C-alpha cells in the first residue's frame, strides 16, 4: 500500500519540474516580449568600460631619495570595425613607421592564433609604450583616423642608471598570469623580475573604470550617468628600499671593467645597503619600445648581464670561509684559543700553505695569516674527535653536526622568508651526499673531504650568503633575513646561529689583525678598527676569484660586506680595496682616498664587459 502512495509522488515531482519550466517561459515572455527597456538597452546604449590605469608606486632608497618614478606613455589602440577611409600613407608618416610594419601589425592583430582574444568590435593594441615625442605629430590629427585611439599609460623612469638587478623591470603579462589573476588583461604590464616582481601587488595599485555609453555601431555617446559610476584608479603604494643609493652607485662604479658582485648588509637589521652584480646595465634600456631589442642583446651577451650574480652566482668561498670555520670548530670543542698546529709552509701536506709564517701556529695567527694547514688540522681533529665508530657512525654524526652549525648561518639554502628574487641555494655537502658519492657509509673520511676545511671543493656560496655570514658574525651569532623592503615586519625574521657568543672575540681579533698585520694591510682605513678576511678561490675558469668579506667598525658594526671579483687574482689585491672604499663611503659619507678610488675604478679584469 505504502509503495502506491510513494509512486504517486512522481506526479508531485513532475509538477514541480513543469512549474519551474513554465515559470521560466513566463519570465522569458516578460523580458523578451512585454518589457521594452531591455531592447532599448541593447539597441541604443551599451556600456564601454574604459580602463583607467593607476600610476605605479614610486621607489625610494633608505634616505628617501627617489630612485624610480613614472613618466607618461601612450598606446595606440584600434577597433577594427570602426576603421574606414584610412589614409595609410599619412597615418604611417605621422607615426613614423613603415607601411610594411603597418600591414604586418594589422595581420598580427587579426591572427586568432597569436591573438586569441581578438574581436573586431573591441579595442586592440596597435602600438604600445610610445613616448610623448612619438605621438606628438599624430595627436592633433587623430580625428582623421577613425577607429584609432590614444590610450594613456605610464612607464618607468629611473633617477640613476643603477641597481638594475635589484629593481627589476616591467613587461607585458603572460597569458598564464592573465588566466590566474583577474586583475590582468591582455596587454597589461606587471613586474617581471626583481623588486618590481616581488612587490607587484603593492606597487600596481587598483585600476579604475570609466564607463562610456555607445551605440550598436560603436559610436561613443558620452559618459554613463555623468560619470557617477566611474571608479577612479588608485595609485600603487610607494616602496622604500633598504638600499643606500650613493653606496650602490659607488659600488657599481668601482666594478667597472670587472665581473663579480658586492653585497652590503646592515647587520643589526638585515637591511641590504647595496647589491651589485656586474656586468650590469642601465635599467631604463628595458623600458618602452626598445625593450625587446635591448633584452635580446642582454640575453645574447656572453658575460650574462641579466644574471644577478649577487644572489644567483655560486662560488667557493675559499679563505673567506675561515672565520665561520673557526667559530664552528670551537663550538664543537675540536679546538680552543690555545690549540696549536704545525705549518710547513708550501711543503705542508696534504694541504699547502700559501703564506710564510712561523710554526706552530695559534688560532689567532691562523686567521690573520690565512693558514691552510691549521684549518685542515683543526677540521680533522674536530670531526674525528670521538673516533670513527662502527660503520663510521660517530664520525658521520660529528660531520652532520658541523654541517648543521655551518648551515645555521644561512648557507646551503635559499632565504625563503625574505623578498629576494631568484636566489641560488649554494651548497654545504651533506652526509647523505658523501654516502652516495662514495657509495657507502664507510667510503669517506676526514681526509677525503679535506677541501671543506678551507672553503673549497663542494662548498659553494652566493655573495648574498657570504655577506649574511659576516652580518651574523658581526651580530655575535644571529642574523635577520637580508631584505630589500624597509619595513618593520621584515625585522622580525630573526635566525639564531648555532655558535655561542663566547667564541666570537678571538675571531674578531684575528679578523681585525688581517688589517693590521695580515693580508689586507694595504686596505686599512686610518682610525677605524675593521674586521675582514681575504679569500682567493681557485676555479676552473682561469685566474682565481678575488674575494673579501668583513664588517666595520669592529665594535658596534654598521656594515657587513662581501666582495667577489671573478677571475681577478688575489683577494687582497682586488676585492679588499673595494671593501675598504665602500666602508669609507658608508661610515664617513665620502671618499677621501680619491686616487685609490680612481685606481680601482680603472682596473679592468675582463675586456668583454660592456658599459650599458
Amino acid at each position, binding site marked *: 500500500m505504502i509503495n502506491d502512495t*510513494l*509512486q504517486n*509522488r*512522481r506526479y*508531485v*515531482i*513532475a509538477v*514541480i*519540474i*513543469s512549474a*519551474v*519550466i513554465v*515559470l*521560466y*517561459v513566463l*519570465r*522569458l*515572455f516578460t*523580458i*523578451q*516580449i512585454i*518589457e521594452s*527597456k*531591455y*531592447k532599448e*538597452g*541593447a*539597441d541604443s546604449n*551599451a*556600456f564601454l*568600460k574604459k580602463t583607467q590605469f593607476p600610476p605605479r608606486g614610486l621607489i625610494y632608497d633608505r634616505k628617501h631619495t627617489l630612485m624610480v618614478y613614472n613618466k607618461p606613455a601612450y598606446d595606440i589602440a584600434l577597433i*577594427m570595425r570602426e576603421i574606414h577611409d584610412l589614409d595609410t600613407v599619412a597615418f604611417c608618416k605621422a607615426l613614423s613607421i613603415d607601411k610594411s610594419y603597418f600591414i604586418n601589425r594589422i595581420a598580427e592583430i*587579426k591572427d*586568432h*592564433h597569436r591573438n*586569441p582574444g*581578438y*574581436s*573586431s*568590435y*573591441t579595442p586592440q593594441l596597435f602600438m604600445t609604450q610610445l613616448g610623448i615625442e612619438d605621438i606628438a605629430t599624430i595627436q592633433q590629427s587623430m580625428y582623421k583616423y577613425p577607429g584609432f585611439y590614444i590610450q594613456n599609460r605610464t612607464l618607468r623612469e629611473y633617477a640613476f642608471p643603477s641597481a638594475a638587478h635589484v629593481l627589476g623591470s616591467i613587461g607585458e603579462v603572460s597569458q598564464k598570469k592573465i*588566466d*590566474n*589573476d*583577474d586583475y590582468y588583461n591582455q596587454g597589461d604590464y606587471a613586474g617581471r623580475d626583481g623588486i618590481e616582481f616581488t612587490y607587484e601587488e603593492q606597487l600596481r595599485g587598483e585600476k579604475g*573604470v570609466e*564607463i562610456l555609453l555607445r551605440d*550598436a555601431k560603436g559610436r561613443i555617446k558620452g559618459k*554613463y550617468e555623468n560619470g557617477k*559610476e566611474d571608479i577612479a584608479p588608485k595609485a600603487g603604494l610607494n616602496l622604500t628600499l633598504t638600499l643606500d643609493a650613493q653606496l650602490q652607485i659607488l659600488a657599481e662604479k668601482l666594478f667597472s671593467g670587472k665581473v663579480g658582485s658586492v653585497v652590503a648588509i646592515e647587520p643589526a637589521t638585515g637591511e641590504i645597503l647595496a647589491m651589485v652584480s656586474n656586468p650590469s646595465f642601465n635599467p631604463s634600456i628595458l623600458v618602452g619600445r626598445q625593450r625587446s631589442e635591448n633584452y635580446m642583446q642582454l640575453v645574447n651577451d656572453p658575460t650574462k648581464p641579466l644574471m644577478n650574480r649577487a644572489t644567483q652566482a655560486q662560488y667557493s668561498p675559499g679563505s673567506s670561509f675561515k672565520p665561520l670555520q673557526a667559530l664552528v670548530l670551537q663550538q664543537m670543542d675540536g679546538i680552543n684559543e690555545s690549540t696549536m698546529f704545525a705549518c710547513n709552509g708550501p711543503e705542508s701536506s696534504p694541504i699547502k700553505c700559501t703564506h710564510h709564517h712561523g710554526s706552530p701556529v695559534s688560532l689567532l695567527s691562523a686567521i690573520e695569516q690565512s693558514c691552510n694547514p691549521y684549518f685542515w688540522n683543526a677540521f680533522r681533529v674536530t670531526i674525528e674527535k670521538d673516533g670513527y665508530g662502527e660503520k663510521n657512525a660517530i664520525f658521520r654524526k660529528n660531520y652532520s653536526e658541523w654541517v648543521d652549525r655551518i648551515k645555521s648561518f644561512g648557507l646551503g639554502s635559499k632565504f625563503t622568508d625574505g623578498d629576494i628574487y631568484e636566489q641560488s641555494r649554494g651548497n654545504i655537502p651533506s652526509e647523505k651526499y658523501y654516502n652516495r658519492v662514495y657509495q657507502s657509509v664507510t667510503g669517506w673520511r676526514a681526509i677525503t673531504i679535506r677541501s671543506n676545511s678551507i672553503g673549497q671543493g663542494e662548498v659553494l656560496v652566493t655573495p648574498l650568503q657570504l655577506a649574511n655570514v659576516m652580518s651574523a658574525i658581526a651580530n655575535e651569532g644571529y642574523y635577520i633575513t637580508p631584505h630589500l623592503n624597509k619595513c618593520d615586519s621584515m625585522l622580525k625574521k630573526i635566525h639564531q646561529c648555532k655558535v655561542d657568543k663566547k667564541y666570537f672575540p678571538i675571531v674578531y681579533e684575528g679578523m681585525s689583525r688581517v688589517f693590521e698585520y695580515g693580508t689586507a694591510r694595504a686596505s686599512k682605513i686610518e682610525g677605524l678598527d675593521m674586521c675582514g678576511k681575504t679569500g682567493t678561490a681557485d676555479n676552473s675558469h682561469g685566474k682565481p676569484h678575488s674575494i673579501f668579506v668583513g664588517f666595520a667598525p669592529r665594535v658596534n658594526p654598521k656594515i657587513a660586506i662581501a666582495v667577489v671579483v671573478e677571475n681577478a687574482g688575489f683577494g687582497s689585491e682586488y676585492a679588499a680595496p673595494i671593501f675598504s672604499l665602500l666602508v669609507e663611503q658608508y661610515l664617513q659619507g665620502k671618499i677621501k682616498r680619491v686616487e685609490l678610488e680612481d685606481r680601482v675604478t680603472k682596473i679592468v679584469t675582463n675586456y668583454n664587459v660592456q658599459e650599458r
Partner: protein
Amino acid sequence: MSKNVSIRYALDWTTVFYYVVLVLMGWISIYGASYNFDQASIFDFSQRAGKQFIWILSAFAIGGILLLIDSKLYNIFAYFIYVGAILLLIVTIFVAHDIKGSRSWLMIGPISFQPAELAKMATALGLAKFMSAYNYKLKTWKDLIPLGLIIFAPFILIILQNETGTALVYVAFLLMLYREGMKGIVLLIGSFTILLFVIIIKLSIVTLQVDQGTLGMVLGMGIILLVQIGYAIFICRNQKEAIILLLGTILVGVAAYILNIWFYVNYNYVSIFTVVASCIYWIFIELFHRYKKYWFLVLFSICSVLFCFSADYLFEKVLEPHQQVRIKVLLNMEDAPLGAGYNVNQSKIAIGSGGFWGKGFLNGTQTKLKYVPEQDTDFIFCTVGEEHGFWGSTLVLFVFWLLLMRILRIAERQREAFSRIYAYCVASILFFHLMINVGMVLGIMPVIGIPLPFFSYGGSSLWGFTILLFILLRLDAARLERMR
C-alpha cells in the same frame, strides 16, 4: 552479436534523440557565442566551436562504450566507482593548479578535466546501491547517517576545491529522496526557510521610523503568525482559536502603535513578543484540551524565530563577501551595473533584445560585443535568447522538459530499486542544473557558476552529463533483456 541486437532493440531511442538535439543546439549556440564576423568555419579547431565538436564526438563515443558494458557491472561496481571518485576528488585538491581561486582542474597533458563533474554520477551510483539494499528504509538513524555521509563526502570535497556552485548540486538529491519516501514536509520546510531568509535579508535594510525595528523582522514574524492561523483553521479545524489569535495580534499591534506616541517602542521586539505569546497560548490550549496537534506548531514557531534571528548573522558571517553580493544583486539590493550585477544585467539585455523571433543566427550584437561574460559556458542560454528569441529559448526549455519527463517515465518502469533510484538521481541533477543555470541567466537565481547540461562549452561537463545519462540508458535497456 546477440547483445548488440538486444541493445539496439531495448535502447530508449527517444531519450537518445532528445540528447542529440540538445547537444547539437548547444554546439550551434557556442559557435554563435564565440563567432566574430571575420572568423572561419565552425570546424576551426583553434576556436571553441571546433573544440566542442571534438568533445561532442568523444562524448558520443563514450556513450556508445557505456552501452556495451554489461549492466550488472554498474550495480556490482557502484561502490568502487564512488570510492574511486572520492579519491580522485581528494587527489585533485592537492594536485590541481589554482585557477582563479578554484582548485578543481586536473591537467593530463593538454587536456584539463574537472573530476567534480564525474563525482555526481558516482554519487548517484553510490546512493542507488546503498538505498536499493534489501530492507532499506528512510526512517532509522542507522540508515540515514550513511546516506548523509555518501552525499556529504563529495559535497565537502568540492567545497574544498572552491567550487561552491558545483557542490550545491548535491542539494538536488532531496528530490530523489522525496520520491523514495522522505517526508514531504522536508521539502515544504526547505521552501519556507528560503522564503523567510529572502524576506529577512531583503527587508532588513528597511527600517521602521527611526531605529524602531526593521520591516524584515516584523514581516517575518507576521508570516509565522499567518502560518499559525492557517494551521489552526485548515489542519486543526479550530476557527475559534484562529480568531482569538488574529484579534490578539491586531490588539498587540494597535497597542504598540498607540504606546509609541508616548514611549520608545521597538517593533522588532513587539513582533517577537507576539509570536512568543502565541506559542504560550498554543501550549495552554494543548494542555487544556489535549489536542496534541499544536506541539508541532509551537516547535515550528520557535525554530522560525530562531532562524529569523540567525539569518542576518548567517548572511553576514557565514557567507563570503562575493556570495553576499550575489544574493543582494538577486534581491535587487545592490544595483551597480558594472559590479556583480553587471553579468546578469547584460545577460537580461542580451536576452531581452532577442524579441520573439530573435536577431537570427550569428547576428546577436550583444554577445558579439562581448558584453556578456562567460557567454559560451555559464551564460550560453543568453546566446539562444538573443539570436533565436522567445521561440528558440522556449523550444530549448521544451526539449529539456521532454527529456526530464522521459527520464521520470523511465524511472518508474524499472523493476529494480537500484535503477529507479539512479534514474531519479539523474533527473534531479539535470533539473537542478537547468533550474539554477537558466534562472541565473534570467535573473531569478543568484549567480552560481554551474553549466547548462549538454549546452555549455567544455569537455568535462559534457562528458559528465553524457556518462550520467548513458549509464541510465544502459540500466533501462537491461530491464527488457531480463524479461526475454
